[in-house]
Each structure stands twice: as structure tokens, then as C-alpha cells.
């Protein structure tokens, strides 16, 4: 505990380098053959190569999910992360300290301070009360009894088990027992939480609830979580990044969206086939650049011209700072132009659906059904980021690429023939408005360009993965 190096702020929470774990009699020989490219099946006579050449970093404050079917080596992998299993080759570094080859005593010290664990079957001590279980990690850390009780009670309260401290684990339901398991890990106040199939033994409703609670707790406490699961939906819901394992190797490492839209091989593709895409992809993932946009100050003539050029019956109207004001329809605008109105204001309606960028597609359907119009995607300040037409929504759900570049976005078709609009514009054109018209056209172009900027900015922010509290 004395000469442990203080981890620098930039180091990853966990670093795994070329980690291989082989169970069997001749690890050296097996290792050589693995490195020479032998597969798992060829080594079967010697033993089991549980993990082969795993190489990844876990960033601080992220939920890193390792996903794979049973036998893919994910449970072995997680047990090497806290030194419960010693790797055959490669290294594991926890908060800047390489634990591979560390003495048992120092390893225990690292576990106490940095890594706690939640187990599939809860692994509570059945002969101790819930409170004593929650405080077990603290007890091993040598925290005095009174403080231990207080902290354990606090954390039990936090996971929704306030007042259950005196019960025995066997008196609790499965979901509650796992809350105790979670409380025990959280109470230890370690930076890293390893969760080994933590919710797999729970029934679906409780599981969903626990997943939501975990995300909530993670956002609040900023823990680094390594989560093992065989359930892809769970992986997609929880994971900031997901490592897909097959036969001991990590076959793909990426965000949920990357794995869903760009599977590394057929295995992953087959795997993600059954995923409920509508619960993984968000409005921000699938939205299109909003082309039909005018600024409110541009006036009705500009709006009408934009609609004519884009062959659409509506445009989004944005105010200063690209705040979305509403939409205008071609009939209403046509009427304004015919009356010679200079302001677009009277025609703006706000009955169009608005969604935020991080809403899942599953939440968009209702709005999409209720309205003819594309869904407007806005950020917290109400700025227009993009639009999700129905066709995009459907394309994203099917196994079609969510990049809709090749199929043109069909906006609501124009309801008034082009020549009628052109004629009206001509008829109402006055010499003094000709210049204004030119200015209007510029305004439309500028609005579209600005939209692209904001969208790019939003995408960048997304990519930076700012899930943790800044």
C-alpha cells in the first residue's frame, strides 16, 4: 500500500495486452501453436484455450461489455482482470499497475482498492445478514464497524433496499439478492466494477429494471464497469463499447451502433440479426440532414421557392441560433404570397413531431404514425439537428444499411404543382422585391449550410462519448 504509483489521470482503467489463458498440461507448447495460428479445435487434445490474444483498453467511466455465447471465454477473461486467474501469457494492468505476476498479497491490495465484482448467482454469504453482506468489502478493507454499517446502510438505501439490512439473503427474492451483490460491490468504493453475467439469473422484467438502475448509478457515480453477458440486447443497452467474443478471440470491438451496422464478420452479423434494432439505434444515428429549412426572417417567398426547388410540401422554419420554430405548408405559404404578406409568422404551425437525438427508434414510432411530416430532431437548446422521415425509420429497422445515401429521402410530396407556384411567384413579383428575392435565396442556402455545421458538431460530440460526468 505504500509505494503504489498514483495512476495518472490519462491512463485507462484497465489495459489488457495479448492476453492468453490456456487450461491444460503443456501451456508453452499450446501457446506456440496458438501464436502460429492454430485454432481452438486443433488444441483440444492438449486442453482448452479459453482466451486467445485479447488486446483492449477499458476507458475510465465507461461501461465496457464483453459479449459472447457460453464457452466463448468471457468468464475466464473477466477473472483475469482481477487476478482470480493468472494469464498464460500477456499482461493485465489495473489503474496503471500491472497485476500479472504480482505477489498474492499485493494483488489482494489491488482488489481491495480498485476492483470489486458482482457475480451471476449473487455469491452472497448465506450465513450473514444483508447489511453484513453489503459491508463485506469494507470489512476486508479494515473499515471500523460503525462506519461500515453506516456506509453499507447508505448504499443499500441507494439500490432500493433501505430497511432490509436485518434480513438474511435467503429471505430475499433473486432480484433483491443481486441488489445486495451490487451494493456490496459499490460500497467497497472501488474504481472498477466487474460484473459477471450479473443479471442473467434474473427474470426479464427485473433484469430490465436492474439494467436501467445500473446505467443510472453509473452516470451518477462514474464507475468503470466491465459487464459480461451472453444477451446481445443487454449488451447493446448497457455498453458504451462492446467486445464480441467467439471461441476465445475478440472478433469485434466497437460501439453498439458500429456492431449493428457494420458487423466484422458473418458470425457477428448472424448474431446481431435478432437484435431489436429499434432499441439500439437512436434518432441521432439515423437522422438525415434537414434540407428543407428556411429562416423565419427569409419570408414567404423564399419559403415557397425552397419548396418548389426541393419538390416538397413543407419546410422547417428556424429562428435565430437555429432554434426550430415549426413548419410551414405550401398551401399556407402560397396564400401568404398571394396576399403579399412579408412575414412567414402567420403560417408557422408547431403541430409537427419533435424528438431528441438520443431517443431510441422504438420511441419514435408513435410520433411517426401520428404525423405525415418527417420527425424533427433537436438538441437540448431546441436547435434543429436533422430530420427522420418515415422511410428512414423503416430502412433502419430492416437490415438495410442505415446510411440512406443511396435511397433518396422522400419528403412529403408537393401538393401544389410546380408551375402554379412559379406562376404565383412571377405574378406577385415586384421590382422592389426582386432584390429581396435574391436575398431570400441566399438566406435559404445559408440556413442549410448552418444546419450541416451543427449536425457535424453534434456527431463529433457523440463520438467523443461524453457519457461520464464531465
Amino acid at each position: 500500500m505504500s509505494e503504489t504509483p498514483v495512476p495518472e489521470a490519462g491512463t485507462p482503467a484497465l489495459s489488457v495486452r495479448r492476453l492468453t489463458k490456456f487450461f491444460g498440461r503443456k501451456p508453452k507448447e499450446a501457446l506456440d501453436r496458438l501464436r502460429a495460428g492454430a485454432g481452438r479445435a486443433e488444441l483440444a487434445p492438449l486442453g482448452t484455450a479459453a482466451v486467445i490474444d485479447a488486446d483492449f483498453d477499458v476507458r475510465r467511466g465507461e461501461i465496457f461489455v464483453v459479449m459472447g455465447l457460453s464457452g466463448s471465454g468471457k468468464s475466464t477473461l473477466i477473472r483475469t482482470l482481477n487476478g482470480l486467474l493468472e494469464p498464460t501469457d500477456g499482461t493485465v494492468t489495473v489503474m496503471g499497475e500491472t497485476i500479472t505476476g504480482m505477489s498474492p498479497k499485493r494483488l489482494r491490495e489491488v482488489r481491495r482498492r480498485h476492483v470489486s465484482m458482482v457475480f451471476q448467482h449473487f455469491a452472497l454469504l448465506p450465513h450473514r445478514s444483508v447489511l453484513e453482506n453489503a459491508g463485506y468489502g469494507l470489512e476486508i478493507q479494515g473499515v471500523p464497524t460503525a462506519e461500515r454499517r453506516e456506509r453499507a446502510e447508505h448504499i443499500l438505501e441507494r439500490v432500493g433496499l433501505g430497511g432490509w439490512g436485518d434480513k438474511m439473503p435467503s429471505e430475499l427474492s433473486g432480484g433483491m439478492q443481486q441488489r445486495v451483490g451490487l451494493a456490496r460491490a459499490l460500497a467497497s468504493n472501488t474504481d472498477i466494477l466487474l460484473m459477471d453475467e450479473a443479471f442473467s439469473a434474473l427474470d426479464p422484467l427485473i433484469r430490465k429494471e436492474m439494467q436501467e438502475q445500473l446505467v443510472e448509478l453509473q452516470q451518477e457515480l462514474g464507475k468503470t464497469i466491465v459487464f459480461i453477458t451472453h444477451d446481445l440486447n443487454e449488451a447493446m443497452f448497457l455498453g458504451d463499447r462492446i467486445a464480441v467474443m467467439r471461441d476465445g478471440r475478440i472478433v469485434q470491438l466497437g460501439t453498439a451502433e458500429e456492431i449493428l451496422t457494420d458487423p466484422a464478420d458473418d458470425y457477428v452479423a448472424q448474431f446481431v440479426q435478432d437484435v431489436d434494432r429499434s432499441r439500439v439505434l437512436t434518432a441521432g444515428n439515423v437522422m438525415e440532414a434537414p434540407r428543407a429549412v428556411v429562416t423565419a426572417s427569409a419570408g414567404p417567398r423564399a419559403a415557397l421557392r425552397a419548396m418548389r426547388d426541393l419538390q416538397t410540401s413543407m419546410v422547417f422554419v428556424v429562428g435565430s441560433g437555429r432554434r426550430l420554430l415549426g413548419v410551414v405548408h405550401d398551401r399556407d405559404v402560397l396564400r401568404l404570397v398571394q396576399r403579399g404578406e412579408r412575414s412567414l409568422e402567420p403560417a408557422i404551425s408547431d403541430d409537427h413531431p419533435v424528438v431528441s437525438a438520443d431517443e431510441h427508434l422504438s420511441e419514435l414510432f408513435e410520433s411517426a404514425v401520428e404525423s405525415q411530416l418527417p420527425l424533427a430532431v433537436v438538441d437540448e437548446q431546441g436547435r434543429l439537428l436533422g430530420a427522420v422521415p418515415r422511410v428512414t425509420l423503416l430502412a433502419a429497422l430492416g437490415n438495410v444499411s442505415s446510411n440512406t445515401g443511396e435511397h433518396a429521402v422522400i419528403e412529403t410530396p408537393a401538393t401544389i404543382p410546380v408551375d402554379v407556384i412559379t406562376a404565383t411567384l412571377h405574378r406577385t413579383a415586384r421590382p422592389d422585391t426582386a432584390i429581396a428575392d435574391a436575398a431570400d435565396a441566399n438566406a435559404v442556402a445559408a440556413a442549410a449550410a448552418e444546419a450541416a455545421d451543427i449536425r457535424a458538431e453534434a456527431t463529433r460530440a457523440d463520438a467523443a462519448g461524453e457519457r461520464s460526468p464531465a
Partner: protein
Amino acid sequence: MNDFRLPLGDWADAFIHFITDVFGGFFTVVRNIFAGFYDLVDFALQTPPFWIVVLALAAVAWLAKGWKLAVGTAVGLLVIVGVDQWDNAMSTLALVLVASLIAVVISVPLGVLAARSDVASKVIRPILDFMQTMPAMVYLIPALILFRVGVVPGIVATIIFAMAPGVRLTELGIRGVDKEVVEAGQAFGASPWRILRQIQLPLAMPSIMAGVNQVIMLSLSMVVIAGMVGAGGLGGEVVQSLTRIDVGLGFEAGLSVVILAIILDRVTGALGTPRKPGAPRKQAPATDAAEPLGPEAERLPAASATA
């Protein structure tokens, strides 16, 4: 072929002689310790009037299980008093208690060792097989040479014969502790000793107590044999009735052994699965996870593992 003979017997004989010559002093010390221990327990059981001992044992039975066992214990002991075997029964009880205690003290740590190391397990297992299956009277011969006539060779032979289930059930119990719970201890940074004390021993307790129960029962079955080398007690009475062809005495002494056996079995059996005071035993609410330890786990004493 007829001339050839494996001189195993000669070797064993030479070995014992060698031991006697070299370690004679050591065995004298052991003899004195065992004898002193036995005398102490025997004194504690023989000195008070019989009804005090009967009440005390009935009270133990009450604490262990309940009033029914207490009444049964009292009645059984009074029958022993009625057939005038009280003093002999108490000598036998003292011998069983001393031998069992020493056997448990040796066998539980051995069981722990066997559970922690596969090598130890492989070494210990055949030795246990040997100790348990070798006809018990064979132990008496070297024990007689090493410890001379009296109660001590009886105790030693009893310990050797009765130890095996203690080791086996301790090993089984500790190996049977849910692996994930042990892992939890490791994952939170507990030392191996702490995991043993706070997790493995408490969770293996039902199995260990079953082992203790078996040790005591086997000890009791040895008392008659111990009687042959002058250990006295009920065993001595049975041996005497055999030499005199005295059916009556044989029956009375034998019945007393049976009564003691039943009392000891029920009391130690109940100690393995203690009730929670005040709470009626009932089924825990069903959990959707498999309870890997079975119902025993919930009945473990909560106090046994506080730091």
C-alpha cells in the same frame, strides 16, 4: 513357490520394536497426557450424584433439540441407573468424549488440508481407507506395546479407527462450498485464512458436524474392543459377560451402550443443524436462482463468522 513368503509381518513387528526403542519416552508422555485427560473427564462425570449428571445431560439435550429429547435422555439414563451400570456407563462416556475430541481435533485440520490441496487429498485418502478397514483389534496390539494395559491403548485405537469420517466429511464439506462465494471472498481481497474462517468453515459446518457425529458413533462402537485391553467401563462388562457366559449381564451392559449411542447420536446430530431461536423453521421464499448449498445454508448460525 511354497518357500517364498512376504515378510510383511516381520517388518511390522520390527518397526514397532524400533519405534518403542527410539520413541519410548515420547509415548510415555502421550500416555500420561491421554490418561490425565481421561481421568479429568471421568472424575467430572463420576463425582456428582447420578441425578445431577442426568439433569445436566438432559439440559444439554434440551438446548440441542428440545424437550422431547431431554425427556428421552433422562429416561434412558435412569434405565442405566436401574440396571446398575451407571459407573461403567460414565467411564465409557468419558472414554468416548476424550477419544472423539482428540479425533476431531486431528481430523478437521486434516480435512481442511485435503480440501485445499489435491496432493494432500490423494495422500490422505488411502491412509484413511487403511485405518478404517483394518480390523480394529489389530491396532490394539501395537497400542498395548506402546502404551501398556489400561485406558490409553483403548483411546488410541479408538482415535485411529474413528478419525476417518471426520477427515472425509470435512473435506467434502469444504469442497462443496459454492465456488462463486469463495471467489467473492477472493475478489474482494480476503486472505485465504480469512476465506477459510469466514466462508468455508461456516458453510461447510453441516457436513463437518455430520463428520463429528460419525466420529462419536464409531468411538462408541470401539468401547467394547477397548474393554479387552483393560479400559473398563461398559466394554469391560461385556468382555466379562462373554468369558462367564452371563447372558443377563451381557444384555444389561449392551443395552446401556445402545442407550448412550442413541443419546449421543441425537444430540450431536441436532447440533449440526441448530434452529434459529424463536423462529419456527419454514421454507424460505422461493428465489429464482438455484440455491447451491441446499437448505442447510440458511440454518447456519449467523454468529459463527463475525470478525
